[in-house]
């Protein structure tokens, strides 16, 4: 189902070459945590050069999908092909070689607290290359300048920077090895609107200046509309009927408002819709399950409500 959508949409993707081999190909991916299915039978191709935004409400599994793409989470079922290589069949050394080609920007930057900003950005170079100190210094300063940070921040520690600056350092670190794929996990979450726009512009500038494919996980519709040329919307597995696809939408951002699925339109507009009724029903069911008449309540259907994202 997803493959068909992707193929149909592929011809409309902006600067990506739809006929090129996809850089990432997910086939029949299922992931579960503690018997709670988070992703089920997901098929998705990501083409070189495109910027894909994965959207969806909290807990729908978009971050899990992204981490599965880069081999941080091993799926229970299905395969992840990066440039034609199945990640589950690679040795640790081969996987490390693949990771050199992927830049990862974490939600809260995930900078190493004990290192200076310079050391944080230089870390991937130390891990993968044997460049001399002068070259490392030049490359680190170049990347910091590219994300709009002055050279003085190089000697500071992450705790001394604002949230926006930390995110930019995270981007500089992801760019330092000039990866082919950059994945952004909630790049604008927790930032003010101006700083969010700065980050969006940086994502666009990165795409302009480097031949990269980008995957952006977000629930910020401004970001999705501004940076992406393709949007995929996921829906929480536990709220779907058996047989329904978890991917509700796969297409250009311009068509989101006119999507045929009502749930997509509601999400894009930020309307709760029947979600409030669903939550009330869930709450009542949870109360019944954990009532004194059922002393073992609370260990069944409602578990994993919030930990599957």
């Amino acid at each position, binding site marked *: 189902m997803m493959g068909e959508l992707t193929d149909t949409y592929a011809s409309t993707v902006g600067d990506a070459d739809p006929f090129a081999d996809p850089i990432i190909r997910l086939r029949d991916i299922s992931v579960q945590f503690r018997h709670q299915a988070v992703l089920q039978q997901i098929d998705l191709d990501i083409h070189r050069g495109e910027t894909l935004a994965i959207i969806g409400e909290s807990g729908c599994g978009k971050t899990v999908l992204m*981490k599965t793409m880069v081999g941080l989470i091993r799926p229970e079922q299905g395969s992840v092909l990066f440039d034609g290589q199945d990640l589950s069949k690679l040795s640790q050394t081969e996987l490390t070689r693949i990771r050199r080609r992927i830049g990862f920007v974490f939600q809260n930057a*995930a900078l190493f*607290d004990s290192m200076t900003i310079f050391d944080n950005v230089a870390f991937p170079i130390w891990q993968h290359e044997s460049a001399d100190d002068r070259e490392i210094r030049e490359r680190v300063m170049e990347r910091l300048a590219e994300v709009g940070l002055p050279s003085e921040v190089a000697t500071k520690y992450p705790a001394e920077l604002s949230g926006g600056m930390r995110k930019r350092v995270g981007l500089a670190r992801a760019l330092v090895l000039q990866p082919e794929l950059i994945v952004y996990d909630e790049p604008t979450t927790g930032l003010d609107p101006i700083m969010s726009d700065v980050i969006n512009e940086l994502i666009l500038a990165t795409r302009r200046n480097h031949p990269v494919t980008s995957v952006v996980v977000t629930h910020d519709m401004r970001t999705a509309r501004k940076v992406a040329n393709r949007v995929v919307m996921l829906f929480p597995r536990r709220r779907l009927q058996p047989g329904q696809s978890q991917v509700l939408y796969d297409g250009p951002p311009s068509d989101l408002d006119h999507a045929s699925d009502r749930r997509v339109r509601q999400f894009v507009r930020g309307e709760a819709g029947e979600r409030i009724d669903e939550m009330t029903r869930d709450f009542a069911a949870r109360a019944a399950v954990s009532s004194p008449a059922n002393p073992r309540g609370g260990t069944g259907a409602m578990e994993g409500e919030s930990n599957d994202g």
Partner: protein
Amino acid sequence: MAGVTFRDELPAASDRTGRLSHWVTDWGGVVIDAVSTVGDITIFVYRMFIWMFTRPPARGTMLRNCYQVGVLSLPVVALTGTFIGMVLAVQSYRQFQMIGLENRLGAVINSSLVRELGPVLAATMLAGRVGGAIAAVLGTMRVTEQIEALTTMGADPIHYLVVPRFLACVLLIPALTVMADFMGIVGGYFYSVVVLGIDHAAYLQNSADHVTGFDLFSGLIKSFFFGGIIAVVSCYRGFHCEPGAEGVGQAATAAFVMSFVLILGVDLILNILLDAFYYNIWSPEQAP
């Protein structure tokens, strides 16, 4: 009447079956969790040893961890050792005085310190100071995705974070144990000779007669194991930290409690083994 009895008994039997079923389920869950944790720790330790022998940690990382574990722990270990030596003197003096053996106090204080109290107390202090800190730091790194960030950049978290901490603990806890022993001996001597007025020469002679090289050896052997326990338990707890500030706090507490219990359990086993070693191999002529 029979019908009434039947209806009354049916729910009770069903209730009993239900309770039994829940009890079996609960205990089954506990056993599965325990077995799975032991399996996890075994794989964790196996991976750590593989990395340790295939690619030693970088010098800078190693030195930073040695400084944290060794240098910063010195004052607290020295202070603890001193007080323990003095407390042993206070506790033992009256009993020995009553039987006229107060000059033998040195033998009791020093052999207790070198064989048992020095290694166990140094390890306990370090489980609190170093183990708690390791679990909290690694737990925070887990919660803030820094450990995942290492993986995405091609660095193995066990090689980069666990191996240097393990080596620092195993190599430096014996040295700290020697420091605890030494300061305990000094503290015990000071209180016995200077405060209680025990004869200086008799105190030293008795100490020299009763504290043997094997006592020091057994204390140091134990401290290697204690260092390994503190490092493995604390790193494992940090790596498996639950999200949030509470998760980090729980990881640090669990690291200390689990290390402490294991230190005492392993201490018992090592004492039995070392005792057997002493009487069968080291000094068989002294075997009872």
